[in-house]
């Protein structure tokens, strides 16, 4: 927004250090993500997922969204992956290759993934085509800025999400309760 108001459009041909870092971290994240779905070892997939999610957090940091970055690490790396690993250990994921990890759905999954990626890339590119974040001005992703925009402009989606999560929580408790006989 700020950059737009200034009428200043940096070109693609003289990238700054941050932009180069952003692209490199992005490539590493993409590589880790591809390895997550292509590795034959179950636990390695979970660990590559850690790398991919961590790379995503670094990308948020480079975009000055510090709060989002740490929440990403806290929720996804700290909780979701731990839950995944817990499940894998409970089912005694073997060390080495799991030949039965592949199902016949591979081509379908690939198609869905490519379609989803294409849609997301198209939407993001179309929405933010000429928007540049001014890295040297006021930090646009600070916790204060995030909080203000969340609770001033996006209160309704926020509340809708909390209701959804509450419903999921209640549902999980109902499903996991044993029937008294």
């Amino acid at each position, binding site marked *: 927004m700020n950059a737009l108001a200034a009428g200043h459009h940096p070109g693609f041909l003289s990238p700054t250090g941050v932009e180069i870092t952003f692209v490199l971290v992005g490539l590493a994240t993409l590589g880790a993500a591809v390895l997550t779905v292509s590795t034959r070892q179950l636990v390695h997939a979970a660990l590559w997922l850690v790398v991919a999610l961590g790379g995503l957090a670094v990308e948020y940091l480079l975009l000055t969204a510090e709060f989002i970055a740490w929440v990403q690490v806290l929720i996804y*790396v700290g*909780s979701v992956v731990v839950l995944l690993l817990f499940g894998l*250990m409970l089912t*005694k994921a073997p060390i080495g290759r799991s030949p039965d990890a592949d199902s016949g759905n591979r081509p379908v999954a690939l198609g869905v993934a490519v379609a989803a990626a294409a849609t997301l890339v198209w939407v993001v590119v179309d929405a933010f085509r000429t928007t540049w974040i001014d890295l040297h001005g006021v930090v646009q992703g600070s*916790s204060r800025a995030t909080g203000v925009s969340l609770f001033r402009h996006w209160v309704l989606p926020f509340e809708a999400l909390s209701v959804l999560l509450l419903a999921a929580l209640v549902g999980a408790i109902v499903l996991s309760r044993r029937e008294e006989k």
Partner: protein
Amino acid sequence: MNGTIDVLLRLLGVLVVFLVFPLLVGQTEHKVMAHMQGRLGPMYAGGFHGWAQLVADGVKFAQKEDVVPADADRTVFQLAPAVALLPYLLVLVAIPVGPHGFVGQNLDAGLFFVLAVMGVGVLGSLMAGWASSNKYSLLGGLRTAAQLMAYELPMLLAAASVAMAAGTLSLPGIVGAYHWWWTPWQLVGGVVFFTAGLAELQRPPFDMPVADSEIIFGAYTEYTGLRFALFLLAEYAGIVVLCGLTTVLFLGGWHGPWAGGVGWLWTLAKTALLAFVVIWLRVSYPRLREDQLQKFAWTVLIPLALAQIALTGVVKVVTS
């Protein structure tokens, strides 16, 4: 240029703290435990009351052979100690010691940074537990994961209560906003935070994941030499980080008489006192059973943390 030197000096300072303080806590544990049990503890290494015992231990660990079990997943097995240790080094960067920018790096969302990165450290234990290809290690890893999931929530809620009270997520900002009546006001949250932190570090009485009488040493059973020493170091670095954080969040950090001059000394003194409590608990409490552990987290700590958040919110609204 000056900025670069400043950053380098700060990072060097953090590294020195990271290398020295865990050893101090370890040595204190040797001596305090010994005296509480009517023993003397290490007396010979270094001459004066065995002060160099941990240096000698370090040399011993470095000499031992680094064994990787034949069936283990080599890469994951060897990476695990680094994953367990490095997060605590990163966390130390954000903990403020004294007023006027006496901190490695002032982060805007410092509170979230420390909690997020501390959670990553536990991945090291999980990796170790799975990659060792040992039943005891696997059981230890499972218990670690279950414990982390149960105790992460109360810890976060208690920390959120302090952030609400201070109106900021920055750690120096939280200490700056501190008043003496915060300690009684946030007392329940502080106890919950400290207890949940102990559980996250797997310190007694929450050391079910490494319970030596039933699963040898949990996820670390197969480790030898330096890698084993790194896991131990991670535990003691974790104690330093947890005590430092509790000091900063709930005990007012550098606040105290003559805070302008010797504020950093107050932070260190409070941290040391809490570290003593950690050791004291190890000597005096029996280990909780797995079901007791889970029950304690879900039925005691989480309701208490929620009550603390409600109290914080009410007081905040009434006084503002």
